[in-house]
């Protein structure tokens, strides 16, 4: 239905396909019933520390989010 040349709404908003599919997966996981829901949500935990470099080590941003969205 999209005319050729138009980008999907999420790409226009700056998301990559990966982010889009993660949000969709999160929505699906939230649709589960209780015992499976907590198991599935525990499979979504994110934790890492990202440091950008420019000739040395500047800012150390710890991205620790319990949701997969950025």
């Amino acid at each position, binding site marked *: 239905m999209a005319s050729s040349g138009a980008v999907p709404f999420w790409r226009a908003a700056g998301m990559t396909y990966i982010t889009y599919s993660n949000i969709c997966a999160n929505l699906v996981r939230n649709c589960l019933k209780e015992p499976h829901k907590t198991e599935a949500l525990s499979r979504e935990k994110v934790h890492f520390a990202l440091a950008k470099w420019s000739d040395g080590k500047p800012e150390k941003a710890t991205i620790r989010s319990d949701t*997969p969205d950025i």
Partner: protein
Amino acid sequence: MAMAAALRREGKRLAPLMSSQPPINTTLRSSLISPLDQSSIGGARSISTQIVRNRMKSVKNIQKITKAMKMVAASKLRAVQTRAENSRGLWQPFTALLGDATSVDVKKNVVITVSSDKGLCGGINSTSVKISRALSKLNSGPDKETKYVILGEKAKAQLIRDSKKDIALSLTEIQKNPLNYTQVSVLADDILKNVEYDALRIVFNRFQSVVQFLPTVSTILSPEIVEREAEAGGSLGELDSYEIEGGDTKSEILQNLTEFQFSCVMFNAVLENACSEQGARMSAMDSSSRNAGDMLDRLTLTYNRTRQASITTELIEIISGASALTG
């Protein structure tokens, strides 16, 4: 029998006395540096049994610790191994569709080195770093640049030494939660957003078996390069023969596909590397326990020799003293 036991006790009591009278030639050599040296040449001074006993105790503790680490690594390996093998199915369709073009010549290379945060895992991190360096050398030339994205502390420590300027991003503390796709995809997303690339080369250790890890490079091309290669023919040239449903253009689909491919390949790479890490740690700890056992055997022999020598010396002194009295 009681006499022998009494003599043995005397021997033990007197042995530290004997060796604690420091003769001049042995104070120059610390007994801790060469503990297994028995100078029987000039003064018949031997190492104190106390020192050997202490060493034996510490070696035995080390052996226990490394055995425990091996068990822990084995159980962690079992847990990750099935997941890693199952995740191989994620990227195989991509390779069937887009090919794995390792030999594509591009201007901007980004080498993603996957390594572990913890040590004591044998040589896998060094092999990954070696291959990353080789890749960057292969791709050097006018106009071409290679940047590193480093996952894990160990590769960061090694690459800081000589390639500090080429590092773009470093990511650590990845294994705090059990590895899941969501985390890896957020990682992949961050990499995509922060680094400009024509080709991404992921260097990791593929898990073949508990004792064999194969260093592997997986290549992901950016959508523009995929289009360029498709026009040039070859394995990617057949992309045009696929029908596209849904009204997206080919370049959009290619972009979605390459992003998703990157995420899947990263997931597999991280899992396989985790498996290899546990396997390597198992074999490293196993050989360490074995070495500790060998060392313990040698120390036990030394200890017994020393103990028997001191008892013999004691006996000789007592008997010659007694015979001097009576005779």
